[in-house]
């Protein structure tokens, strides 16, 4: 699955990381990196080590990225979905964008209450003979326990900010973070139980078959000495490849304070 608009994504990324955009035109993006971004992306640790040791101000680079394939012969670095640079950026995001606390922007002159939500984005990976991922975005109303699936779709519609808006106050959660998270996990586990897991059955059957083959192979083997070791190792390798498993990982998550109005809307939709 590719990003819908790679160019916009890059632009947003550098803006969000406080880099000046020097040129932005028809699939070409020229960026003045900050010190931090240069350190993260330009792979020159020795330079930065040296600069810092001597107490100099470093000179972060200017970089030109090309996202328009028709212009890839021009000066600059061609960025596409598979390019290592993009994945380097993705990697910075996994830590940079992992935890958050955000508030809905509310224009008001009266005291307004904001309701706490726990929002967690999960990646569920199904691994057997083959592997696939599924993304689940879950929001939990920490006062009334209402749960919303595809929460990110809702949040994308709202203006959000990092500081609490004027005249607003937050309501203290009734449900503790940890037990809220537990409710989400329980929900996912129930969801998984309802599914049909022919992929796992297939992989499991295959695992048993392969184990039998290995056993048979070593049964009348004359490699006595290393027999035990080898056998265990081969069995382990077979398990590693076929043991069906499901991993529930968190992509990111945090606390969102939303207005009563929005909260109700989200839960009744």
């Amino acid at each position, binding site marked *: *699955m*590719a*990003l819908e608009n790679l160019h916009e*994504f890059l632009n947003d990324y550098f*803006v*969000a990381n406080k880099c000046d955009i020097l040129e932005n035109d028809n699939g070409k993006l020229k960026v003045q990196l900050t010190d931090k971004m240069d350190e993260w992306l330009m792979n020159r640790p020795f330079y930065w080590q040296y600069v810092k040791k001597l107490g100099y101000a470093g000179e972060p680079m200017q970089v030109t990225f090309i996202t328009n394939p028709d212009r890839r012969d021009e000066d600059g670095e061609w960025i596409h*979905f*598979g390019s*290592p640079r993009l994945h380097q950026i*993705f990697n910075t*995001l*996994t830590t*940079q*964008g992992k*935890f*958050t*606390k955000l508030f809905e922007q509310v224009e008001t002159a009266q005291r307004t209450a904001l309701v706490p939500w726990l929002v967690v*984005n999960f*990646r569920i*990976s*199904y691994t057997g*003979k*083959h*592997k*696939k991922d599924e*993304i689940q*975005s879950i929001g939990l109303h920490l006062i009334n326990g209402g749960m919303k699936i595809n929460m990110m779709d809702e949040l*994308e519609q709202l203006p959000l900010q*990092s500081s609490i808006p004027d005249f607003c106050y937050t309501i203290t959660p009734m449900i503790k*973070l*940890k037990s809220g998270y537990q409710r989400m996990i329980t929900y996912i*586990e129930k969801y998984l139980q309802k599914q049909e897991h022919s*992929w*796992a059955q297939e992989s*499991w059957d295959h695992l048993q078959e*392969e184990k*039998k*083959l*290995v056993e*048979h*192979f070593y*049964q*009348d083997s004359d490699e006595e000495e*290393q027999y035990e070791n*080898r056998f265990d*190792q*081969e069995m382990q*390798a077979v398990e590693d*490849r*076929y043991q*069906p*498993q499901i*991993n*529930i*990982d*968190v992509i*990111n*998550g*945090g*606390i969102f304070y939303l207005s009563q109005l929005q909260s109700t809307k989200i839960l009744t939709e």
Partner: protein
Amino acid sequence: MNIQLNRDDQFIDDLDSKLNNEEKLSSWDLFHMSYQSSVATSTPEFKGLTAPNHLPHVNFLQHQLDSAQQVVEEMNGRGILADEVGLGKTIEAGLILKEYMIRGLVKKALILVPASLVNQWVNELNQKFYIPAISQRKRPVWDQQNIVVTSLDTAKRPVHRDVILEQEYDFVLIDEAHKLKNHKTKNYEFVRALKKKYCLLLTATPVQNKLTDIFNLVSILKPGYLGSYDEFTKKFGRDRKNLFNDGKLKQLVQNVMVRNRREDTGIDWTKRHVKTIWVDFTEDEQEAYDELSHISRETSNFSSITYTRELCSSREACYLSLRKLVNENNELPNRDDYEAFMQRIEQLPHHAKADKVIELIQNTDEKFIIFTEYRATQFYLQWYLQQHGISSVPFRGGFKRSKKDWMRQLFENHAQVLIATEAGGEGINLQFCNNMINYDLPWNPMRLEQRIGRIHRFGQEQDVHIYNFAIRNTMEEHVLHLLYEKIKLFERVVGNLDDILADLDIGDVEKEIQSIFQESATDGEAKIKLENLSSVISYAQNQYLEEDQHGSRESS
């Protein structure tokens, strides 16, 4: 059935403590982008390849995509890639590795290739596949999470061996895996002992000599799949042909082996036009040649045949060898003859072949690769071409990697001609050139195939023109006629000649021919012996061909 379930228990504690400590947290933009990038990098389907979407700069061929998919989906990451030479086994392997890395299934890999190919693999994985592969250098990196390329010989050295065998690899690849066919060798033991999840074996010749070769290869991937050794030999015998003749075995093997043949790929291969260019010695040269044959036959030693051969290449090559002979042998019986002859060489005009080269190249802008057997000839040709305003760069197997790359670049961008002494520049791809002159023919047909393979490969968009130079009324005429034309080496795109020669127990064709010339009293005798040799080879070749066609017909 038992599905293992793993949850993330860390996240919520971390979030809790960050909130309590009022740490700086992510903005909406970064939070949202982090989510977006995770959605973009996840693979929502069990099946299908996602790797090609990540590699828009590479044009994969259909059979490469199919093979990679087959290995991932049906063989579950353990298989033999046994395409014919030149169909891109490396590319298929790269695709498979990339696919597993994208899906997060491979983080640590060990890639074992011939020492001379280590750098090429590293480059190709990095440039073509964006796989951050590194080659094992002085400082061992075995215990880190990475993709390491090294040679089997390095890996099994005592200093590295034990560390490597402790590692748990997600992916192990062995190039030229037919070297593992014998299960009693150290190499085989070593590979068997590696802890590995996925495993690819690359070889163009999965069964080289005995049917048990395939048993041994498969036992690395899936021990027990073909039964135990005894069961296997009892059931299928030892005849290599059974791999293709025995329906049951063939089917079994097809589940662990991918083999594409050129004719199955549906690709329009550019043609090979092979032309023999006959050259006549000038009268002076011919007389000199005859005299040298005479002198050298009088004092027949092992290298005397070389002098006449060298004279067919250049005066310089011959002169240098003779000078060495005269200087180093005080007891030489007909020293006077040789010395007189050396003076005679000095008087000779330009070499007839060199003039022919000029004639061929001078009136075109096309690039040419010239292969010669001798360094002296290489120098001479470079000088002679320069005299005629033709730019050229030299190329030798002994050049360092960086120099080879540099020469290649010079040739691509500036020079018209590359003069090489050795095809040994494995991994130097010269597809941008489609003309080759074999200034003198190697006596080992395999080397000729390697030479041609430098330009007639993937990426060659033009028909390839091969010009074989041979001088009439010399030993070159015999070699060309009997060995090359009879074996029809030029017409066959891929020769399994090395297997055939191994079968016939002919270790070194070059030595074989040398001794034929050496031990024959007359030209006629040499001719008959050469004729016999080529008959034997071409007979074996036909046998192979039949067997091979039989095999491919049944499998399709």
